[in-house]
């Protein structure tokens, strides 16, 4: 049995991989992160117990011994935001308490997920969840060691150093050091995408900053999104520079006239260095962002260990959903040993 760990909505890719698994004659079971929250009923006895989950009136036993392979697609432990009843009167205290409790319950769900994953330790995973949180800065170090060019990067708390950096590189951008988050305030989603920083903005900053990341702004000819899958590399070029809206960050999507995206073949030496990087990071899958600069250099930006491969697979007609199913099938049969499919 192959276990698919996913989330309940916006997951066409999960369904497509499952269709391919069925085509290969492999039984699979999908568990969404949300299935562990209050809407389902389930229990596990420690130590050594199996998970027993009742969903839609059906009870199923998740016995570690029955699971040969696990596909860690994604996992939103989506504790639904029901407010907890409180005896506090003060409205500010109530708000704070709600926030604290909410974050505590999230942590409880995360621990629980961690236990479920560790019980499945002996199965062959396509990407173990323990490695899905990378440190962008460590990755840049590792990429440079693998021979990839990386953008000049400064992390500083000193405005003076930022101004120097600006003078050296002309244009600069900022982005978060860790994962970017979306803030849901009122009717709006505020996302933290890459943004260009100008001298006007820098002038308004205080002398001392919160530790922040800055990078040289690259003159892009086009951008490259590459999906690395168990030693294979599937790349796509994104022509983000024709459109002002997408020049700095192509995720400022233009839905009316989407950026041109086409199949791309990275030069062999760049592909080799990417393989070396993925080996060093012990990643079997990953979505990599690179830039081809106007002066012809390939610059590595970052890697997302889970990554949406649908956005590469569909426009380039790579059929990666089938490829993922084949790799899971191999894992289910032979464990993690690296055998060609």
């Amino acid at each position, binding site marked *: 049995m192959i276990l698919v760990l996913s989330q309940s909505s916006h997951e066409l890719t999960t369904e497509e991989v499952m269709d391919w698994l*069925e085509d290969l004659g492999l039984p699979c079971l999908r568990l969404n992160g949300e299935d562990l929250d209050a809407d389902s009923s389930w229990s596990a006895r420690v130590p050594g117990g199996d998970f027993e989950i009742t969903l839609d009136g059906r009870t199923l036993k998740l016995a570690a011994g029955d699971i040969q392979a696990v596909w860690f697609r994604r996992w939103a432990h989506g504790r639904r935001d029901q407010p907890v009843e409180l005896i506090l009167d003060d409205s500010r205290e109530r708000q704070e308490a709600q926030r604290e409790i909410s974050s505590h319950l999230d942590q409880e769900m995360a621990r629980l997920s961690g236990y479920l994953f560790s019980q499945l330790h002996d199965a062959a995973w396509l990407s173990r969840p323990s490695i899905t949180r990378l440190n962008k800065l460590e990755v840049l170090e590792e990429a440079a060691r693998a021979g990839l060019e990386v953008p000049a990067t400064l992390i500083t708390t000193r405005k003076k150093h930022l101004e120097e950096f600006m003078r050296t590189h002309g244009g600069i951008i900022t982005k978060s050091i860790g994962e970017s988050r979306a803030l849901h305030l009122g009717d709006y989603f505020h996302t933290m995408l890459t943004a260009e920083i100008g001298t006007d903005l820098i002038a308004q900053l205080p002398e001392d900053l919160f530790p922040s990341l800055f990078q040289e702004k690259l003159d892009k000819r086009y951008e490259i999104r590459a999906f690395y899958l168990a030693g294979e590399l599937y790349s796509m070029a994104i022509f983000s520079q024709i459109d002002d809206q997408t020049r700095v960050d192509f995720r400022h999507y233009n839905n009316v006239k989407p950026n*041109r*995206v*086409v199949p*791309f*073949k990275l030069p062999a030496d760049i592909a080799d260095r990417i393989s070396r990087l993925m080996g060093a990071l012990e990643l079997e899958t990953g979505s990599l962002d690179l830039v081809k600069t106007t002066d012809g250099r390939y610059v590595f930006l970052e890697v997302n260990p889970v990554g949406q491969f649908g956005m590469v697979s*569909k*426009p*380039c*007609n790579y059929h990666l959903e089938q490829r993922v199913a084949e790799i899971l099938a191999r894992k289910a049969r032979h464990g993690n040993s690296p055998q060609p499919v």
Partner: protein
Amino acid sequence: MQDKSRIFMLFACCIPVLGARRSTICDLQRQTFRFIPNGLHEILTEHRGKTVAGIEAAYGHEYDAEIAEYFEFLIAHELGFWCDDPDCFPEIDLTWKAPERITNAILDVDAESRHDFDKILRELDDLGCKALQIRFYDAVGLAELERVLELARYGRLRSIDLLVRYSEEMAEVDLEPLLRKHGRLSSIVVHSAPEDRLKRLPSGALLSYRTKSVDSPHCCGEVHPRYFVTNIGCFSEAQKHNTCLNKKISVDTRGEIKNCPSLARSFGNIRTTSLHNALAHRDFRELWSINKDRIDVCRDCEFRYVCTDCRAYIAEPQNLYSKPSKCTYDPYTAAWRSA
């Protein structure tokens, strides 16, 4: 002044298709197409990868001005780009694949039908079917629609399209809640309605009332630009497969299992056999591989990979490879015959 050593490349999602009189560039990403003269088709295919100077020389410098104009047009419409590294930009692989044994189905119903919906839906689910159209030629009650939709609630179907005959029970206030409740329901079209009216719900689902009556499968098989689909899925499927019948299965009003309700041949009745058995018949897939390149006239048409086909209503009933009879386009004159 253009740099003549440059190489022009079409974006791989913009694919030129040669017609008898004119050609198209099918834009599979932005889901549209543009007409181009056949001369430009030749430049883009036979002289692909050459520098501007190389192309000009190939035509003995007779058309330098036209060639410059062509490239300006293509750049202005974002169909291609000046490319410094052509080896990095392969053509798109047009291999079509689907894990489902059946991708789409039609189920016809009239007043005399005695379908076991539960059985049919279970079998379709097992075959992996993703899209289902149910056509009710005669009046049907709201409760019956609700019952059928409930049976499809937990299956693998992604979209259900309903065609129903107008009656008092088919009012907007009754059908809208149905569309909201069943996320898989992508459209309800009400035929024989008192007026033409169209409403799109926030979810994207469509509720449409049409005065035209649809009382039999004979109303199908129309070929018209409004049915063209320009995307990578359909375009790649059309390379080697029939654009209507590939991986389709149908059950007609009497329960006969067919490729399409409009076709004569039955592969057994659903009361006595299963969809699986019908599908296993060696002839069932015969029509699936009749692509447009094998059909008379269509093979010379610039729309052949974005157009729907029909094998039920054809120009010469004795010739399985004749063009759809309801198509009024003539690729040799590039004109639509007015109906």
